């Protein structure tokens, strides 16, 4: 039982790292909290659902399609909202409210066009086989999700540390003003980073069926709060730290479900409050933000 919980916790944790990483990337680059993050995860899930049921497209191929869709969506959203917001009196607070409005719009559009129903891609998409580690059997879909999550983390790492755009992104994360002065096209790089954040959210959405169950239009808010808990646990503004946050969250939720199941839905909220009050810089972060 204990071994099973630990192993499942690690697999869940890596998936939840994927759920949170996009939010953290956007926060790191723009110092804005994308309160519609959960809704972009939902959009990813619905995209995967329709691709699967209309055209029989496998979720793994849906990743490529969602990259294209959310790249354009992200760039469009960035240029519509962000430059104007950055000029306002209190961008941090106003963006918070604005993205909330966006999340309402997305949710309403999905309900109006597809109805307020649960949708699912069957986990048999990847076959019925199981795999076993240390004598514990898990569905094959969990293995695939774990591998996808690890590959995504490697890709994000490679982007940050081995591409020119990634260097520029990290420069903006360190100081937006100084990057502007040193000739970086801040808006273009930020827009691209915003798109990557949305793409990461949509990938988490594509695989949500196998890890957190059916998708429904109002699933976003809850996922946003969970993602926020994860990135605060890891380190705000440090995307790679999200992996640590995800692992802690995954293990904690698995242990709660195994040993104290009736209270497990309280966990993300309590973790979030506790970490903000007692270690607001996150478990591995340095920046402190308090009033």
């Amino acid at each position, binding site marked *: 039982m204990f071994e099973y919980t630990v192993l499942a916790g690690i697999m869940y944790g890596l998936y939840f790292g994927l759920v949170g990483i996009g939010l953290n990337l956007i926060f790191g680059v723009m110092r804005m*909290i994308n309160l519609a993050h959960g809704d972009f995860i939902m959009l990813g899930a619905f995209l995967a659902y329709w691709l699967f049921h209309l055209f029989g497209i496998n979720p793994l191929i849906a990743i490529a399609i969602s990259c294209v869709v959310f790249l354009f969506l992200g760039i469009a959203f960035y240029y519509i909202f962000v430059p104007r917001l950055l000029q306002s009196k209190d961008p941090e*607070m106003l963006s918070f409210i604005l993205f909330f409005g*966006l999340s309402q719009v997305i949710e309403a559009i999905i309900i109006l066009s597809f109805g307020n129903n649960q949708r699912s891609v069957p986990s048999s998409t990847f076959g019925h086989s199981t795999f076993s580690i240390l004598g514990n059997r898990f569905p094959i879909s969990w293995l695939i999700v774990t591998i996808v999550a690890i590959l995504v983390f490697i890709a994000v790492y490679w982007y940050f540390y081995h591409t020119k755009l990634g260097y520029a992104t990290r420069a903006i994360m360190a100081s937006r003003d100084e990057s502007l002065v040193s000739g970086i096209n801040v808006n273009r790089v930020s827009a691209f980073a915003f798109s990557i954040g949305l793409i990461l959210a949509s990938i988490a959405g594509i695989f949500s069926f196998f890890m957190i169950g059916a998708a429904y239009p109002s699933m976003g808010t809850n996922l946003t709060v969970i993602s926020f808990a994860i990135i605060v646990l890891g380190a705000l503004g440090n995307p790679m730290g999200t992996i640590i946050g995800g692992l802690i969250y995954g293990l904690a939720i698995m242990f709660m479900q195994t040993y104290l199941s009736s209270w497990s839905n*309280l966990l*993300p909220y309590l973790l*979030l409050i506790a970490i903000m*009050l007692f270690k607001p810089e996150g478990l591995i972060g340095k920046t402190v933000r308090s009033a």
Partner: protein
Amino acid sequence: MLKKRIGSFGIILIIALIFIFLPFVYNNQSFLFNMMLYIALAEGLNIIYGFTGYLPFGYVGFFGAGAYSASLAILFLHFPPLLSIFIGGAGAFLVGIILMPLLKLSGAYFAIANLAASQALYYIVANPNLESITHGPYGISLASIYNPHASYYTMLAVLVLSMIIVLFIRTSNFGLSLLAIKEDHITASLAGVNVAKARAIAWGLSAFVAGLSGACFAWYVSVFYPGTVFSLNISVIVIVFALFGGIGTIAGPLVGALILYSFYNFIGISAPEYFQLLYGILIIVLVLFLPDGITSILQKRKIYVP
């Protein structure tokens, strides 16, 4: 100051008279009750958001805490309704004290932590393990003391109280010190303002108003579920009402709630999805083009808005 105070009192008096006499000519009492409820909540939120800049995204936590404190006082202690309403306010105030440490977070961090706190409260109240105390997810029934007229006029009293609190904050030195803290808390503290104390008072008053409103709501509807009184939508609706009108004034949240709640009543109940869509678009447009609310149009022309 005095002149401004008298002018604002006039507005409060007019609102009170309207809600006293309107039920005799307009028979949709539940619409009027909810209107008063949302004005009171928007004014309560205004106390903390308008004057200190802290956005309480989990404001509904106080509302729910008030509803449940009052209900438990009625069901277990058999208190009379009016005393129980007060207990509701006190319960929310207590939750406010417990959540006081959140005030050391800034900006969006405070908002998110407060949201998490209200959700945590919801999951605690709705937990089936606590069925013997809170009735868990099965909700509360106060049918034995159901009295729409008495609760209507109690809500009116709470509404007047909330507006008077905002009036006094707006026209007193205490309000000025809050605004100073909002602008720059370090400078304010150098100028001799007790920052922590001032914030705590505003926070407590804000929680108290929400608790009283929640308690009145519980009495008025008399049957409700934890999901009803802890619904995140209440926080959101109230924030948008206050923002739409313009925070930091008495008139702003009042105008916002009057216009938007009427609008909600017009289309929101029959077609909630379209309402949600329009609402979201309204939020985006407001933030981008009119971040200080509609009363700011007057303020920009140097007209004093009470």
